[in-house]
């Protein structure tokens, strides 16, 4: 039996690893032995407490994200949601999920060929295990962060991408079985972040649920004044940070927010007072009439 004023057990109660559990406020602890409560948690809390449980039980330290990537995602969050976490009404974007992946480190070969002015080419391996089957790709972007503290004039960059099939026979880095080159032109003008849209490039791979994306990215930049080597060196150092991969997704699962759906839902069944129908009047008989009189009287009074 639960007294009225005791907190309802369905308050968010993180089922975290034991150490956290003991520190949790008593109100937020599930009653002893209610491990089945875990199965009743809504997906978000289950996912979150899962994460808590995973990192605690497996003892593996949670991998910390790249600080630049974290800074970018915090900036994206401020663009899309209020301080209280309410999604801003963006007509434009249909995605309700944005995932940022940083490349795995083992497959990075960096070299630069000053003769052709190559800034650098790098092998990147992205592991996309966290993308669920219900998350559909809308847009994907390679995200370069440039350190703009170095004074740069505007310069043009060309980027060549090639994807590599994952050859499982090789131990660490697969050999190139076939590559598709894609050249893009974009101008970087004192920007901290440069986004290279690779949607058409990755769509077929992600659509086939490819979990490991291996690609080589080759940057060639034409500087404002090619003769000026000092600038070239500075720029090379700036751009050597390997890019992150951003996926804009539409999560079609139940618990994800579907803006167009909520608009339609609101229009379809607004929670308005229902007209009292004759059934109710019959059921309550004379009391019903008395109530309506009383209601009229109380309405006058009000």
């Amino acid at each position, binding site marked *: 039996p639960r007294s009225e004023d005791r907190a309802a057990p369905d308050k968010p109660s993180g089922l975290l690893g034991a150490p956290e559990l003991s520190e949790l406020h008593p109100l937020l602890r599930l009653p002893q032995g209610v491990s089945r409560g875990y199965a009743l948690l809504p997906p978000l809390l289950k996912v979150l407490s899962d994460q808590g449980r995973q990192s605690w039980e497996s003892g593996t330290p949670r991998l910390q994200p790249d600080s630049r990537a974290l800074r970018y995602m915090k900036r994206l969050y401020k663009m899309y949601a209020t301080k209280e976490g309410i999604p801003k009404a963006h007509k434009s974007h249909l995605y309700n999920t944005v*995932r940022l992946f940083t490349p795995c480190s083992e497959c990075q070969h960096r070299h630069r060929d000053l003769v052709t002015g190559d800034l650098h080419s790098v092998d990147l391996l992205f592991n996309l295990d966290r993308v669920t089957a219900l998350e559909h790709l809308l847009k994907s972007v390679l995200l370069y962060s440039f350190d703009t503290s170095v004074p740069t004039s505007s310069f043009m960059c060309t980027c060549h991408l090639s994807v590599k099939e994952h050859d499982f026979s090789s131990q660490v880095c697969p050999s190139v079985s076939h590559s598709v080159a894609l050249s893009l032109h974009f101008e970087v003008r004192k920007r901290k972040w440069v986004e290279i849209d690779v949607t058409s490039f990755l769509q077929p791979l992600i659509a086939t649920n490819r979990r490991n994306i291996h690609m080589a990215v080759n940057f060639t930049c034409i500087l404002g004044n090619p003769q000026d080597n000092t600038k070239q060196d500075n720029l090379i150092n700036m751009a050597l940070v390997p890019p992150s991969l951003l996926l804009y997704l539409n999560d079609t699962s139940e618990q994800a927010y579907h803006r167009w759906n909520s608009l339609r839902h609101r229009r379809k069944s607004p929670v308005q007072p229902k007209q009292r129908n004759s059934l109710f009047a019959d059921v309550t008989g004379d009391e019903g009439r008395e109530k309506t009189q*009383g209601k009229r009287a109380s309405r006058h009074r009000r």
Partner: protein
Amino acid sequence: EENLKEAPATPPQNLSEYFKQFLFPQNECELHSFRLSFSQLKWDKWIIAPHRYSPQYCKGDCPRVVGHRYGSPVHTMVQNIIYEKLDSSVPRPSCVPAEYSPLSVLTIEPDGSIVYKEYEDMIATKCTCR
């Protein structure tokens, strides 16, 4: 004038009694605020934003005449009548959320990737009796 003659004048001292049955309960069903910070739950290790979250909740007694105030279906009044007149083991109607708003969450995944997600039905915005 006929009606006045027919309707016996209610002596004033019972008037308040008479109207009491239409008054709404003091602690009527309504939305209550509840703010928590993810650091209280020790979830701030992987929930980067928002720092605070107000899920709100519904609490209070459902008045007997709920139709026009809470958009309750007729069944709610029927349940109330059953509770009052037929079988008090049948519970009275409950005060529950009727509408919600979404919440955007920025979290760090176990593999170190970062995800921005918008979740449905995370903040109660309206209560009803059902």
